[in-house]
């Protein structure tokens, strides 16, 4: 776009007045169906991975890696959000919920300290 400055801003025609840039049209949002993940690994590990992929019946090492990563990563994330207790641990846990212990001396001290230090 050219600016017509005549009669508005005199005596500045020695300055370079850049044509005003219009913002480029926003590129259409790209939907990515895959993302890239790279890792450098020791050659001997690569051999083991290739062997394992064959044993697991995968024709491509990439398929095997993706599958293994998916299972392992989901498990790690899932286990960070829950615990599963066995019968003995469940019983002990529930008993302690129903008959809670008194706050410890350290907890009471921390509580008093908190009330002084925090607004």
């Amino acid at each position, binding site marked *: 776009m050219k600016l017509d400055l005549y009669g508005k801003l005199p005596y500045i025609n020695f300055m370079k007045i850049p044509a005003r840039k219009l913002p480029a049209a926003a590129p259409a949002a790209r939907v990515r169906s895959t993302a890239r993940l790279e890792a450098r690994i020791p050659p001997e590990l690569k051999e083991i991975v290739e062997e394992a992929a064959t044993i697991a019946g995968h024709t491509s090492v990439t398929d095997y890696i993706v599958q293994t990563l998916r299972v392992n990563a989901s498990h790690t994330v899932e286990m960070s959000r829950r615990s599963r207790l066995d019968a003995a*641990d469940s019983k002990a846990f529930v008993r302690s919920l129903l008959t809670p212990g008194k706050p410890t001396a350290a907890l009471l001290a921390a509580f008093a300290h908190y009330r002084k230090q925090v607004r």
Partner: protein
Amino acid sequence: MPYRFEPLDPERHDRSGFQSSVPALTAYLQQRARKDAERHLAVTFVMVEESAPAIIAGYYTLSNYTVELAELPGELTKRLPRYPRLPATLIGRLARDERFPGTGKLLLMDAILRSYSQTETSGSIAVIADAKDGAALRFYTKHGFLRLGSESNRVYLAMSSIRQLGTYPA
């Protein structure tokens, strides 16, 4: 020096200056905390000095947790919400800046009290924490946390224990 706690706000809090003695906890605050909040996976609360509200003295995260129980006699379970999957609150991470020694218990206390106050709107039977090493385990057990299961390094403090704090005079 009085402190206050606020939800992490990257516009106001300087994440890049934060320095925990545990690199993973520094990296989490700088690289993942905001993403986790956007995806509603975990909320981060930061502790700041009132006189320097941009400097993060410490932080912790809260998220939902589930304790799955084995089959138990009815008289034990009838008073439990949503048995056999009990809702709890996880302190996923808790870290102070190296320049603010002794503030770990303030972080823990705020996490505990905030978790307790949220039980009014969403059910939770206990605060859970991860005791990553011996020092962390001693820190939590000293404050009344118990081992969650014999195999795990997770610990818990029952909401019913936290409620009792309210009966003690200041």
